[in-house]
C-alpha cells in the first residue's frame, strides 16, 4: 500500500532566511551564501500494508511530520522514493482551508474539494456533515460569526466524513465540548477500524497502544525501531 524506500530529506538552512533580492545580492557579494544542511530524514525505509494502522512516535523534531508530508506528496524527498497506491486524505490542521466570508455550506464544498472529494460525494454526505457538526441553522451563516468551537466541529465533520484508502492523522483532535469529544473519538475509531490504512502520529502512548497494529519509532530522522506496538512502546518509554 505504502512503500517508503531509503528516503532522505535535507533542508538547506541559510544563516538567516533570504527573502528579498537585495539581501540575496548582498549575501552573494559577501560570499556568505553558505548553506547549512540539516537532514530531517536519513535513509528511512518501511512499508505499510492495506488496512494497517501504523503509529509513528518520536521526540519533537524527530521527523514525524516530515515523513507524513513526504508520503502525502507535499515534500519531495532529496533522495529515495515513495510509492503510494490509493487516495490519501490528510486530516488538515482543522479549518485551514476555510474562507471566513463564506457560509458554512459554501465552506463544506470548498474544503471538501480541497480534500479531493467529488461534488456527487459531497451532495450525498452534506446532510450527514451538517448533522454531525450539530450546527443546525447556523450552516447558512458566514463562518466569521462562528464561535471557535463551532468552527472546529464543522472542520472535523468535513474531514472525517470520508472513507479514504489512506488516512493521515497528525495528533488526534480533541475538539468541542465533552460530548462532542466523545463523539469524535468514536468517529476516529470507526474510521481506523474500517479497513482504512492509517498513519497516526501522536505523543499519547496510551492512544498508540490502544489503536495501532505496528509502531515506527523515529529518532533524529532515522528509524530507531519498527515492530509490534507493545514492544516498541515499551522500548520508547524507558
Amino acid at each position, binding site marked *: 500500500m505504502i512503500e517508503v524506500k531509503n528516503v532522505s530529506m535535507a533542508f538547506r538552512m541559510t544563516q538567516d532566511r533570504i527573502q528579498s533580492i537585495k539581501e540575496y545580492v548582498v549575501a552573494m557579494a559577501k560570499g556568505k551564501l553558505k548553506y547549512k544542511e540539516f537532514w530531517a530524514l536519513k535513509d528511512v525505509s518501511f512499508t505499510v500494508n492495506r488496512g494497517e494502522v501504523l503509529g509513528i512516535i518520536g521526540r519533537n523534531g524527530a521527523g514525524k511530520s516530515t515523513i507524513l508530508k513526504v508520503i502525502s*506528496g507535499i515534500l519531495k524527498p532529496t533522495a529515495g522514493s515513495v510509492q503510494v497506491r490509493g487516495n490519501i486524505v490528510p486530516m488538515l*490542521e482543522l479549518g*485551514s482551508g476555510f474562507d471566513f466570508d463564506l457560509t458554512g455550506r459554501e465552506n463544506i464544498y470548498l474544503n471538501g474539494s480541497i480534500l479531493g472529494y467529488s461534488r456527487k460525494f459531497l451532495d450525498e454526505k452534506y446532510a450527514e456533515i451538517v448533522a454531525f457538526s450539530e450546527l443546525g441553522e447556523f450552516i447558512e451563516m458566514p463562518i466569521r460569526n462562528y464561535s471557535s468551537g463551532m468552527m472546529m466541529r464543522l472542520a472535523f465533520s468535513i474531514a472525517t466524513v470520508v472513507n479514504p484508502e489512506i488516512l493521515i492523522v497528525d495528533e488526534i483532535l480533541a475538539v468541542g465540548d465533552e460530548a462532542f469529544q466523545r463523539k469524535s473519538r468514536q468517529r476516529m475509531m470507526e474510521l481506523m477500524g474500517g479497513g482504512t490504512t492509517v498513519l497516526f502520529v501522536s505523543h499519547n502512548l496510551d492512544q498508540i497502544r490502544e489503536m495501532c497494529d505496528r509502531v515506527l519509532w523515529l529518532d533524529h530522522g532515522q528509524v530507531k525501531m519498527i515492530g509490534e506496538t507493545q514492544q516498541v512502546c515499551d522500548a520508547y518509554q524507558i
Partner: protein
Amino acid sequence: MRKKWDLPKGCVIVLAILAVLAVLFYFVAGEQLQVRSDATDAVSPSASAGEILPGTTLSQQFSSPGGRLTGFSVLVGTFARQNRGTMYFSVSQQQPGQEPVLIETFAADLEQMQDNSWCQIWLSDPVEDALEKQFILTIWSEGCQTGQAATVYFGNSIATGRFEIGSEGWEPLQQNGVLLDGTLCLQVYGGTDLWFGQYYWAFALGAELLAGLYCLRLCRLQAKGKSCFGLRFIHAVTHYRFLIQQLVSRDFKTKYKRSVLGIVWSFLNPLLTMTVQYVVFSTIFKSDVPNFPVYLLTGIVLFNFFNEACSMGITSILGNASLITKVYVPKYIYPVTRVLSSGINMLFSLVPLFLVMLATQTKITPALLLFPFTLVCLLCFCTGLVLILSAAMVFFRDTQFLWNVLSMIWMYATPIFYPESIIPARFLTIYKMNPLYHFIRFARMVIMDGVSPEPKAYLICFVFALGSLLIGGLIFRKVQDKFVLYL
C-alpha cells in the same frame, strides 16, 4: 474505468468543433483572409497649393503600397465657400523611357465638395502587379473662376507612424512643372494577396488531420495504459475540475461579499474609469480618435483584466501557503484559478462595453465573433505570466513591489487612452514588442472596424499566448518543489 470510455467520444467532439470553427472562421474573417489592405501615410498639410484654376496642373508622382493599386484619397480645401466647376483627377502609370499610360480619370463636382475633407476615389478597375511601379496623379480644374475654385494641400512631414510604408521617397508636388516644397496630401490604397488565404482550406485540413492523428495517438496510449502530456492534461482537467470550480467561485463570492452593490461593481468599475478618462482625454487633452468611448473602454476592460489577474495572481501561492504545506494539490491550480476568476470578472465588464457600443451606435458585425480569440490568447498570456510571478514571489517578496512599478510602465506603454499614432516611428519596433498592444489592437479592429485583422495578427497573438504559457509553465514546474521550503 469510466474515462477510458470517454476519450474517443471526447476526441470526436473536439474534432467536430474544430471543423465547425474552421468553416465558420472562413466566412467571418472573409476578405481580410485573402487580401491585406495597405495604405500609405499622408503628410500633414503645411500649405495649400492655392486656387486651382483652369490652366493650372498639379502632378504628383507616387507608388502603390501593395501589389494591387485600388484607390486614393486627396485632402481638398474649398476656402470655406461655395465653389462652382469640376476638379479632375487622373491616374496614369509611368513607363521608363515612354509616355505615361493613362489609367483612369475622375471628376469631382466642386459644389458638392466639403472644406478640408478627404476626397476618396476608388479605381473602377484596380491595377494589378503595381508594386515598384511609378504612378502619376494629375489634378486640374475646369469651369471655375477666381474666387470659385478649390485647392489641395501639401506638406513635408508625417505626423503618424501607423503604417510601415511611408510616403518618403516620393518626388515633390509639381505645379505646372515647377517643384513645390513638399508632397501632396495624398493617401494611396492598395491590396496584397495573401498566400495564407489562398491555401486556407489546405491549412484547415492539415490542422484537422494533425489534431486527428494526435487524438488517435492519445487513444492508443491510453489503451496501452501509458501516459503522456495530453493524457495527463485531460486527467488533471477532469480530476480537478470541481476544485477549480470551487476556488473560482470562492474568489468571486468573497470579492464583493461585504459590499452593498456587490456584483454591480464589476459593471460599474470599468464604466466609471471610462467616464473619468473620457472626460480627461476628450476635454482637457484633445484626442481625435474616432468613437473614443468604445476605443477607451476596450482598452480599459482588457488591461484591467490583465492588471487584476497579475496583481492578484502574484500572491496566489503565498496566500494559499497554509493549504500548500498541508494538502497535496498540484500547485499550479492556485495561480490558474486566480486568472480564471479575473477572467470571469472581465466577462461581466464586457456588458458595459456592449452597452456603450449600442449607445455610440457602433456597428455590430459578424466580426465580433472573432473577439473571443483575443480573449483566450490574453487569458493564456496572463496565466503564463502569473505562473512566473507567483513563483518568483515565493522566493523574493520584493517581486510584488517591483511588479507595481512594472505594471504602471506597462499601462503607459499600451495604447489604452491614447491613439497609437502618437508614438514616434523610430520607437514603433520596440513599442510593438508589447504583447498587450497586439491583443488590444486585435480587439479594437474587431469591435470598432468590424473587420477581421490580417492573418499575421492572429499569429502574433497566438505566439505570445503560447510562448508565455510555455515559459511560465516550464519555470513553474522547475521550481515548484522548492515552494514548501520557502513558504
